[in-house]
């Protein structure tokens, strides 16, 4: 392992931390660009599978970064990527919250929120596209993906049930 991988991880994720609007799903395309296309730490398919693991595990979905770090540079990589992804934005939040508690303006906040939402929507749609392209290659994949979509979009059941079904089928050799 090259020693500068940690520095590269740090640089990418510090920057990402500060532009990561709209939650973990909106930054998937950027993580994909970094991990697959720029740095070649993993293949398209590995990316989709690691993303699935980060979703199947409990905890914030942002922990996808720790899997990217782990794949790139082992345990140290995981720690560096996680700290780099959460550190700068946490510092910013810390200082903004201190000020906002005194001078919050609801109207300004609402306008910013309305303006950012469409950007987030476009980014999440891009995530959906990239992950579908990377992970769905055959009929079974299509059925599993469509079933998860339906369960999530039209019912109140947790999508984790289908993660269970997907795991069960895989263990039975159906994949």
């Amino acid at each position, binding site marked *: 392992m090259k020693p500068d991988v940690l520095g590269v991880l740090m640089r990418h994720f510090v920057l990402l931390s500060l532009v990561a609007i709209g939650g973990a799903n909106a930054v998937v395309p950027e993580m994909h660009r970094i991990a697959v296309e720029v740095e070649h730490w993993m293949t398209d398919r590995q990316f989709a599978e690691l993303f699935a693991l980060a979703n199947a595990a409990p*905890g*914030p979905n942002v922990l996808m970064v720790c899997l990217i770090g782990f794949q790139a540079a082992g345990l140290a990589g995981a720690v560096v990527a996680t700290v780099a992804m959460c550190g700068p934005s946490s510092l910013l939040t810390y200082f903004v919250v201190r000020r906002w508690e005194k001078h919050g303006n609801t109207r300004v906040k609402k306008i910013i929120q309305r303006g950012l939402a469409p950007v987030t929507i*476009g980014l999440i749609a891009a995530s959906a596209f990239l992950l579908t392209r990377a992970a769905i290659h055959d009929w079974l994949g299509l059925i599993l993906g469509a079933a998860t979509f339906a369960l999530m979009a039209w019912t109140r059941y947790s999508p984790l049930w289908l993660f269970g079904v997907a795991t069960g089928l895989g263990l039975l050799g159906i994949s």
Partner: protein
Amino acid sequence: MTSAQLTDDQPTRTVVTARDLFFGFLKVGIQGFGGVLPWARRMIVEERHWLSEVEFTDLLSLCQLLPGPNIVNVSVALGHRFAGLTGSLAAVTGLLAAPFCIVISLGMLYQAYGNSEALGGVFRNLGAAAAGLVVATAWKVAKPYIARPEAIVVAAAAFAAVVLFNWPLIYVVLALAPLSVAWVWRLAR
């Protein structure tokens, strides 16, 4: 509004220590299957009454405006409110500690058996299911905005910039976010 909601919205005055924050968020992290936010809301508002419903929504909407993982921002903000810097550190550490260990264990499993006959299929199936999950998320967040042409234009531009032109996120956000906010601001006047 029912009386129950009214009492819920009374400002809360609770003493919350860094230790409480650590263990509260530790529990949230472990419970948080399929997204942590619902569990965090439940712990903070319903179980421990650290914030009222309204206070929680306000805090969350502020944290969603800021960059970075939303739930991490919530833990930082809440930690700060009750116990300053120590509180923030305790809350974030509590939130991430357990999930980090679990995810790393899964990552080790993946590196060891990701290409094996037995588990390769499991990971492939999980990948397909997770893709469907994100398609559904995209559909859900887009639904309230479908009737707004300005939102569709901005969303389509962001999608195209990322998927077709492969732009780095920083350019997409720096170009589109101010434009979109200015557009909404003009329409709101």
